[in-house]
């Protein structure tokens, strides 16, 4: 089999799910054929196959989009709602946090919300302060939501299928810079279970716990440091919440050193939660404090030079790993 891009993989996963289950449908701004199949073309070609009721182009109304998806999910459908860019979740947080996340619990299990909210974001394309943020920590903090993000095309396909299968709401975060990434084609029907991390690279000296686009940086750094005799293990969480604690803790118990890495700003980020958990549960295995890397604590800037200074870079990863090894 050949290669597949992340954009193709997402389109295929949605296509397969729609073909198998007539309750699966997409809604969002510009998603239908008339509008070009989505700004990033993830739903391209699907209107022609499934019709406009199942690929519903919506007005620019995020609250109405997510609300409708919640209602349809309550009625037993499996909507895939697209929030074009992650910052726009600010418009519809009530529907996500007060409704999608809580209705199973508040109804005592009488209802549930099998809903996927796809959204994209990413620093590095010059979109500025309101189109770039990684806001996964907002959702990871809410009981009842799964938060997922792929770092490669095969995982994108597999995680999307599992997200559509899931009987609870899933926030599915895509990174604009990753749509063109290619993987070996995993073939039809491929699934990656939610809540299961991948050991993206095995190593023995330090564990880097990360997800999404920064997995690529971690892997690049790991290759580089191997030449200097430092063995880096890279854990790709894939599911940010609930996350695969067992895999993370096992890795840290093996290496004795841990670094959390994400594109989102560092203060109160998911890395802080993971670091605290490691320190509570692996204290005796640790050879030093858990280190954290995240984006700069400022709005994402526009000017390219500032944006590159904002984003966590490979040199920071190298420096933190070396410091943790006492080789700083």
């Amino acid at each position, binding site marked *: 089999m050949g290669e597949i891009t992340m954009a193709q993989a997402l389109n295929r996963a949605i296509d397969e799910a729609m073909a198998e289950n007539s*309750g699966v*449908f997409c809604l969002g701004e510009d998603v239908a054929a008339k509008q070009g199949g989505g700004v990033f073309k993830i739903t391209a070609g699907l209107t022609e196959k499934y019709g406009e*009721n*199942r690929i*519903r182009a*919506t*007005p620019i*109304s995020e*609250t*109405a989009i*997510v*609300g*409708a*998806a*919640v*209602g*349809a*999910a*309550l*009625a*037993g*459908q499996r*909507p895939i709602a697209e929030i074009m860019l992650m910052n726009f979740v600010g418009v519809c947080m*009530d*529907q996500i946090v*007060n*409704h999608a996340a809580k*209705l*199973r*619990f*508040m*109804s*005592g*299990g*009488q*209802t*549930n919300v099998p809903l996927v909210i796809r959204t994209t974001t990413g620093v590095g394309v010059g979109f500025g302060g309101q189109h770039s943020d990684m806001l996964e920590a907002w959702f990871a903090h809410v*009981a*009842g939501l*799964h938060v997922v993000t792929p770092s490669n095309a095969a995982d994108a396909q597999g995680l999307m299928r599992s997200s559509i299968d*899931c*009987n*609870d709401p899933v926030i599915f975060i895509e990174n604009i810079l990753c749509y063109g990434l290619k993987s070996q084609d995993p073939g039809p029907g491929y699934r990656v*279970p*939610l*809540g*299961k991390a991948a050991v993206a690279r095995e190593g023995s000296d330090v564990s880097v716990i990360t997800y999404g686009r920064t997995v690529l940086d971690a892997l690049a750094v790991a290759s580089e440091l191997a030449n200097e005799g430092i063995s880096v293990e890279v854990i790709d969480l894939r*599911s940010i919440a*609930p996350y*695969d604690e067992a895999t993370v803790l096992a890795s840290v118990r093996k290496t004795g050193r841990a670094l959390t890495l994400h594109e989102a700003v560092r203060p109160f980020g998911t890395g802080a939660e993971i670091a605290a958990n490691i320190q509570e549960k692996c204290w005796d295995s640790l050879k030093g404090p858990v280190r954290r890397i995240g984006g700069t604590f400022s709005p994402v800037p526009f000017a390219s030079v500032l944006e590159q200074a904002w984003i966590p870079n490979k040199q920071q990863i190298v420096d933190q790993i070396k410091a943790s090894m006492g080789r700083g």
Partner: protein
Amino acid sequence: MADIDRDTLLDIYTRTMKVNRTDEKFRSLLMQGKVAVMYYCVRGQELVSAAAMAALKDEDYVVCTYRGQGEQTAKGIPAEKWWAECLGKVTGTCKGKGGTMHITHPEKGIMVTTGVVGSGLPIANGLAMASQNTGDGKVTMVSFGDGAANIGAFHEALNMAQLYKLPVVFLCQNNRYGEHTAFADHTQSESIYGRAAGYGMKGVRVDGNDVFAMYHAAKDAVDRARAGEGPTLIEAMCYRMMGHFFGADFSYMPKEHLAEMQREDPLPKLRAVMLERQFTEDELDAIVAGIDAEIEDAVAKALAADLPGPEELQIDVFEKVPA
């Protein structure tokens, strides 16, 4: 004014009195200190809920608000399940995890009770969208107050519902107050129903204290929705005869307003209609006595029922937490 047949009239009367007697009982329990929970009184709005629910089929969907006792009771949630939930008992319809502001009972179509003003409208669109997608023939009705008409979700939802011609009915119970703020102090619009025109939607205003007007407005809207003719915004004029929630001060309501709402009280008006239509005092009293007996039994069982155990904190958060 179009008529209502005797069976339907009796049905609406029964639903109205169930709502009213439930409200009276709740206030009495709160007053006596036998229960201490948040409760949003529906006194004055009973008929709006009862007539609207009578226009729906059993399997139709309803989304309501924290002031939703009327819709919940009139749509037919069993009293035992309802009372136990309001008292936070494990025998409640949501195992005591939803409470008065989040009553859910899908068996009778009560899909969501939201505590967030205006949030029900977009969700109602989704339920209706599911019906449109599957062709199951159901209609969704969402109830909300005049205060909800000022939040963005209302406008987004109306626009989307009309765009897709969804089988949904928007029932605004204009009780003249958004929390503590009078209608004229929260909008310069003369009406809520008039806003429908802005979205190309049919809007109607009705006297929510008049059983004929209220029932026919609801029935027409439900019939239109079921026939695929799209949504309707109904503005049912009514009064909230108590404060925002039980125990809340309502001295901010002017005396003239209080006098007006006493004059317009839907219950004596409905009773007069029933007598005019040859139902006897005895018949009507017997209906109320039957309702009271059912409520007393449900309350006694709810008071005696078990509280939920701490294990419930881990149940229903997710279907399953990934291993």
